[in-house]
């Protein structure tokens, strides 16, 4: 079974530029998550999708970050314009449909973003 795919693996941009990350979840996984992991911290949930609907985006900085999952499969996360503090690893994860019990989240390798 293929895992969660992410691209690119690394990205270096200058502040005020825009950037986009792509994620393809495990086949059949209805729930998709984007996390931000700043160096020295644990991953922080930015947004959670179930199919193509947003379940939780309470920690997404909506003035500069956007995410979509138009067909309920792959997803893109965009930052526009980027700030220095956006330097982090952006992790995508997927799981079977949510419910009352926990469904294991499987993580992709992440995209390391450096903003200069």
């Amino acid at each position, binding site marked *: 079974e293929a895992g969660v795919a992410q691209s690119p*693996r690394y990205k270096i941009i200058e502040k005020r530029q825009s950037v986009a990350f792509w994620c393809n979840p495990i086949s059949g996984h209805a729930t998709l998550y984007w996390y931000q992991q700043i160096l020295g911290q*644990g991953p*922080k*949930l930015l947004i959670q999708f179930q199919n193509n609907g947003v379940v939780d985006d309470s920690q997404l900085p909506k003035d500069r970050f956007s995410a979509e999952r138009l067909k309920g499969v792959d997803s893109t996360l965009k930052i526009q314009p980027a700030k220095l503090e956006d330097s982090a690893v952006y*992790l995508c994860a997927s799981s079977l449909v949510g419910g009352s019990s926990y*469904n294991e989240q499987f993580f992709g390798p992440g995209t390391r973003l450096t903003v200069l």
Partner: protein
Amino acid sequence: DQQVKQNSPSLSVQEGRISILNCDYTNSMFDYFLWYKKYPAEGPTFLISISSIKDKNEDGRFTVFLNKSAKHLSLHIVPSQPGDSAVYFCAALRQGAQKLVFGQGTRLTINP
């Protein structure tokens, strides 16, 4: 507001000995706890979990202990092996939710 805390950024243990990683939480609504392991340039992978109705869960060399009254959990690895060298994250969930809240991580180094 750090609801899940891992106060030791790093831990060094000799191969064959016990590794003990600690985690504290503040939100009493958390009822499910997990440990994830992360190697460099890879995403976190699930290691072991425990429900709040239990105080211990064991899987091979890995055991997680939960002390609800102290809002504390720990991960024991016995015996420690070089392949266990990684960053370990503690995470917590509220009942019915899928939103993981992670601690800052502890870098474990197993020395030969």
